């Protein structure tokens, strides 16, 4: 894959094919952890870290272990176990060696195990036949797209907190309406070819 094609892939993954707003992966944490800009940003950072690492490790294991032994059918089980183990491992590693980073990301790490974006990217890499390097870049771009979306959403929610919202729309529904409008805006990027 040439450099320009790679750049194109990164840009479209972040904007036009945004993981949350057009592929609906990672919705739970997108709605749950977007009340404040700082926590949203923390979640985005933690996810970027884990997602990049997970797409790399899953790619390595798939191409170097599962494919040579014809065990491709085990990929769902293997990938989810890798993600769960990786999250535990990253948590332990950060706790021991990078205390400040652990304190910043700590509470978000366990949430990432059930974030479908991580498993989704690992499976999409297989479906789209990406090799290890492109798969990792795709993982990083996806995570940045998630980060951008959740920070914008958190910023909008902070602004909205002071507004008078009709009672039935308070909480979950108004966030979904906001996400719909954001999604329309991100759709605009798909027009740029």
């Amino acid at each position: 894959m040439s450099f320009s094609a790679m750049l194109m892939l990164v840009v479209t993954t972040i904007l036009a094919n945004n993981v949350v707003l057009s592929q609906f992966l990672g919705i739970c944490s997108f709605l749950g952890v977007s009340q404040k800009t700082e926590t949203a940003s923390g979640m985005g950072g933690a996810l970027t870290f884990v997602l990049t690492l997970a797409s790399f490790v899953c790619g390595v294991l798939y191409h170097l272990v599962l494919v040579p032994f014809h065990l491709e059918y085990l990929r769902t089980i293997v990938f989810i176990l890798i993600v769960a183990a990786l999250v535990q491992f990253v948590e332990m590693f950060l706790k021991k060696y990078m205390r400040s980073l652990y304190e910043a990301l700590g509470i978000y790490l366990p949430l990432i195990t059930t974030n479908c974006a991580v498993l989704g990217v690992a499976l999409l890499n297989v479906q789209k036949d990406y090799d290890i390097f492109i798969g990792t870049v795709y993982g990083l771009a996806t995570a940045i797209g998630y980060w951008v979306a959740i920070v914008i959403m958190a910023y909008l929610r902070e602004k909205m907190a002071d507004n008078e919202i009709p009672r039935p729309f308070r909480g979950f529904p108004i966030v979904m309406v906001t996400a719909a409008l954001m999604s329309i805006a991100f759709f605009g990027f798909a027009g740029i070819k």
Partner: protein
Amino acid sequence: MSRKNPGELIDPDRRKSRFDLSRYIYLRKDSVQERVVNGIYFENPVFMLVLGMCPTLATTTSVTNAIGMGLSTTAILMMSNLFISLLRKIIPERMRMPSYIVIIASFVTIVDFLMQGFLPQMYESLGVYIPLIVVNCIIMGRAEAYAGKHGPLPSLADGLGMGLGFTVALIVVAAVRELLGSGTLAGFQVMPAAYEPISIFVLAPGAFLVLAMFVAVMNRLKIGAARREDEWDPTGKFVCGDCRSCPRVKGCGGKPAVEAAKGSQEGRR
């Protein structure tokens, strides 16, 4: 609790609104029927608990997709609930989560291959969302909240109820999106030929918008139900807050609130 004794202790379980179906149906706890009704109505995973949002948004572009997704989730939920319930005394406490994940992932893999083999067209359109059933919060949630603590038969029924509730919710959302977005229902033309489909409803923004409206309607019904309850509430207007969520209601029995309300009324006069 009757209207004649306004000061009587409130039993929170008996405070039923008109919106609450349990006013009309009485089912034995943990029976098969109770579990199914509970999953479809009282604890509907999508509308009541707001769980499993990813597949609800992603696979409701058409009623056919919604049925496929709902039924495959139901099958996986039933099987994983059954196995987790059977193995609940063998699985050690500390290994609970990894064991659940392996059990769920195995059934997801089986359904994935069955679908690929027998329904290739459906498999194509649902894509990555079939293997992603592994991380659906409903399945893990039921394993943790129900199947790990109850016997096999109620757990199986719980899986069936929750799965059907999920399927019904998906079909309802999908019907609105498909009808408005492409003028069809499960592939059949329903709207007149002159109808111009509003295609944004089958695209991503439509998913968010339709679900937002559904949850808002549910909220409105809940608020309305709560308001009607307040009208004939023996404690009158809540003074120290909501007695239903108050942990000290057993101690005060709502009486101090009534006295306080009377006092403030007299004070105003």
